[in-house]
């Protein structure tokens, strides 16, 4: 037996936990600490059943905190103060005395905390916590209703079970409604606030500048950049993002579009269709497999060097398909104005210039010069690394001739500079290389640490040829071509990722028009199938009867559950009478009092009296009556007087 207030407060702890868990790692450390403290103090006080501190003091304590967070609130920081206040209020309510009103407040605060999660991030785990709260809160509400009627009310386990069952039923009944509402409900496609405060987003590899030599080591996060639905490639695919075509004296590459030479690409070779789901970021660059001929997005800007950009930063999660020609050669219809791609920094060192001269002299064509440069990199035994990088103005020179170690920016940058100095047009391409292929979902997972820079070299009558100087590093095999063994953790991670992927595809970037289109498409397909029309009347019939059967089963189950206690008692009673009095007492088609007088047992008579008095007066058995009946059955079966 347990009191309603106890049930209510246990539920309130569970609800608070379920409400705060999704935001717990997003909120600031202080409210986090306060919440943990409040939760623990609440549990301790609940155990001791003593309330040392009055709620009034908590409210007074909250006031300055509230004002403090009010002052913190600004347009740049709109979420954290609100969530912090919510969390602290929840903590205060948890460790305060809990009357009906306070318990309701806990429910509400927990729900608000969960809702605020969507301001940070909208991931499938949100659904889990939402479902948990949707189950817990109706239970709590039902219990609180009892509590409001009679604050000393107690439950036995069966009653508690019934309360929980009815609350679950309430939730289940609402599910069809929720499903119906889903298509018309507005939703945010991207986490709004973290997106507006771009600190956490786009701390990434794909930048608008390539500046080797600015830091001695580079850190890139393994944050997801995009997913690309495409068949698995034999070689790690190159994902083309942007092109850097101008180099400054400080070895910084950037993109210059004002005098960009026009070029017309003649596409040939293998084409590959892919659907790309980028993660929200503040970048306008559209990434696709090198090199995309077309991208299925309206109003995008296309540059002649195949750089695609959104007109402005996208405000919602989106997806696009791209058709790419993956051979790594971009033939041009006519020769390009190559002088644009031959500009070198004026402060190139002697050694670099000498090397460039050597390359220019020892080969007759651009093609041979390219091969010679590649040969130099292969023979140079360069190492690929992201730490211990050369820095300073002469970083490129250090890389080329002394340290001989760097990351892709060093390789690509020095390679392009050498070629340009040797009179071969070259440019840097920024994008991503490789990515993890998820066999479960059939897509590449490309994270920000896969960001990469490579070189495109222009060979007359041939076109732009993709060459990746990082490949010539002596440890390139180890860096890019390592085959990860499919261990359990990786498989699990991929499974989770594919869940996340489908969540984004179907829930977050849900597009009503697209769904309608798909349904129409499916309908058209069905109509075109002649065979199906013959049995089409069977389908609704089967569906209807299945629904009916399910409802019938459900109904009978519910009926069983609702009356189970009485029915069970009666079944046990009959069994015991049969066992104890056997042949002498006939119980089929006999009334209670006939049975009782036939047995002559006062305990049987008492049982019959209690049972019949409730049953034939059309009322439910009271709790104490049920208990007494159970006891009587025990006595009767043991034959005790």
């Amino acid at each position, binding site marked *: 037996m347990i009191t309603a207030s106890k049930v209510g407060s246990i539920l309130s702890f569970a609800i608070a936990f379920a409400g705060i868990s999704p935001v717990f790692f997003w909120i600031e450390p202080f409210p986090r600490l306060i919440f943990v403290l409040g939760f623990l103090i609440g549990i301790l006080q609940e155990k001791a059943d003593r309330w040392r501190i009055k709620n009034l003091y908590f409210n007074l304590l909250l006031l300055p905190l509230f004002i403090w967070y009010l002052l913190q609130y600004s347009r740049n920081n709109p979420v954290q103060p609100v969530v912090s206040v919510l969390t602290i209020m929840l903590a205060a309510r948890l460790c305060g005395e809990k009357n009906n009103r306070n318990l309701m407040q806990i429910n509400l605060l927990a729900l608000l905390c969960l809702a605020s999660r969507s301001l940070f991030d909208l991931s499938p785990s949100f659904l889990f916590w939402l479902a948990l709260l949707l189950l817990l809160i109706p239970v709590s509400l039902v219990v609180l209703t009892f509590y409001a009627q009679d604050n000393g009310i107690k439950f036995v386990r069966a009653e508690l079970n019934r309360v929980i069952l009815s609350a679950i039923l309430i939730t289940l009944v609402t599910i069809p409604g929720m499903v119906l509402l889903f298509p018309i409900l507005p939703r945010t496609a991207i986490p709004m606030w973290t997106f507006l405060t771009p600190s956490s987003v786009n701390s990434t590899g794909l930048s608008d500048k390539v500046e080797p030599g600015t830091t001695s080591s580079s850190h890139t996060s393994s944050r997801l950049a995009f997913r690309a639905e495409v068949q698995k490639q034999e070689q790690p695919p190159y994902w083309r993002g942007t092109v850097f075509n101008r180099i400054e004296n400080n070895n910084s590459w950037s993109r210059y579009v004002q005098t960009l030479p026009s070029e017309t690409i003649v596409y040939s070779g293998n084409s590959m269709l892919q659907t790309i789901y980028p993660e929200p970021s503040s970048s306008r660059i559209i990434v696709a497999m090198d090199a995309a001929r077309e991208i299925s997005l309206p109003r995008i800007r296309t540059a002649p060097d195949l750089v695609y950009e959104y007109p402005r930063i996208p405000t919602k999660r989106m997806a696009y398909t791209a058709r790419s020609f993956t051979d790594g050669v971009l033939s041009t219809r006519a020769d390009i104005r190559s002088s644009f791609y031959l500009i070198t920094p004026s402060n190139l060192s002697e050694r670099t210039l000498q090397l460039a001269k050597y390359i220019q002299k020892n080969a007759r064509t651009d093609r041979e010069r390219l091969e010679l440069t590649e040969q130099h990199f292969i023979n140079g035994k360069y190492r690929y690394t992201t730490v211990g990088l050369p820095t300073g103005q002469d970083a490129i020179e250090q890389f080329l001739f002394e340290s001989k170690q760097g990351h892709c920016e060093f390789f690509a940058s020095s390679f392009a500079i050498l070629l340009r100095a040797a009179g071969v047009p070259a440019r840097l391409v920024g994008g991503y290389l490789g990515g993890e292929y998820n066999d479960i979902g059939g897509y590449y997972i490309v994270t920000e640490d896969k960001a990469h820079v490579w070189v495109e070299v222009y060979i007359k009558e041939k076109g732009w040829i993709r060459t990746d100087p990082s490949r010539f590093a002596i440890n390139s095999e180890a860096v890019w071509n390592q085959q990860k063994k499919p261990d359990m953790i990786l498989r699990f991670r991929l499974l989770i990722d594919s869940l996340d992927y489908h969540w984004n595809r179907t829930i977050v970037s849900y597009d009503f028009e697209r769904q309608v289109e798909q349904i129409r498409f499916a309908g058209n397909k069905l109509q075109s199938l002649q065979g199906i029309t013959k049995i089409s009347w069977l389908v609704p019939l089967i569906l209807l009867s299945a629904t009916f059967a399910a409802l019938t089963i459900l109904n009978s189950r519910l009926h069983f559950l609702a*009356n189970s206690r*009485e*029915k069970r008692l*009666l079944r046990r009673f009959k069994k015991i009478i049969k066992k104890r009095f056997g042949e002498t007492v006939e119980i089929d*088609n*006999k*009334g*209670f*009092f*006939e049975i009782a007088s036939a047995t002559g047992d006062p305990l049987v008579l008492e049982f019959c009296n209690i049972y*019949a*008095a409730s*049953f*034939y*007066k*059309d009322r439910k058995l009271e709790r104490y009556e049920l208990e007494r009946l159970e006891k009587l059955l025990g006595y009767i079966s043991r034959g005790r007087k």
Partner: protein
Amino acid sequence: MSNTDTAKPVIRLFESLCKEHLHGKDNVVHLVLIALLSAGHILIEDLPGLGKTTIALAIARITGLSFGRIQCTSDLLPSDITGLSVFNRESGHFNFNPGPIFNNIVLLDEINRAMPRTQSAMLEAMEERRVTIEGITHQLPQPFMVFATQNPSDQSGTFLLPESQLDRFLICTDIGYPPEMLERNIISTGGIRERIEEISPLINISEIMQARLTVEKDVYLSDKVVGYIHKVVMATRKHPLIQIGLSTRAAINLAQAARAEAFLAGRDYVAPDDVKKIASAVCSHRLIARAGQSADRKGLLREIIDVIPLPLA
């Protein structure tokens, strides 16, 4: 006043009657009380000399109710029962002399010996609880219960009550011979006829009326039990050996009697057991068997009831 408080005097009366005065007649006394509590009439169908009149007298004495006796004969006229107006020469008016029917308990002995005209007048009075003589309506006293007896053996010069008239009696029962030891005892000590005068009343009219009211209003009849009664009635109507099953009046009477039965058992609700227990006394005389079938209507009814499932859960 709770049901048990109301029931107490009646139950005390029953016990005293059975233990001290009328040995071996528990069943009949029980049925008489049920008829009394549910405002019905009782017909006792048995051979002469088994104590029919004694029971009626004892009941009247112990309840303190007024008692009238009508010995039916073939030349009995309706006015012999109801009474008649006699011219008073002194006052110059007709004065109404009430007949024996103006009593609380009226014993109609050997009702089948009265001619149908008289039977009919009597039964009408039973139903209406009033008598109209020469345009003036006289209410019969409350409570009013007819205690009719009938000799079932075929005898010349008798008019057996037709089945339609039998329907007016709430209960029809027999008495049966007393068990051997009891009968020996009766033989040795003689009947109790003489000692009946010594019985003192244990209950008064207002208590009886209160008990009646309780039976009518405060004994709960659940829909489940109503359903059971209906099932019983329907089963008699469908039975192949029965020509005419139970009427709606029979069903109403069954419910009334079941209430009284529950009341006597000290309960404030009707259980199907009550219906089952009382059914044969209330219903069997109303069944009309098909021609050529055995006249054991009691056995037939028991068979029907035994296969009807009771509402238990």
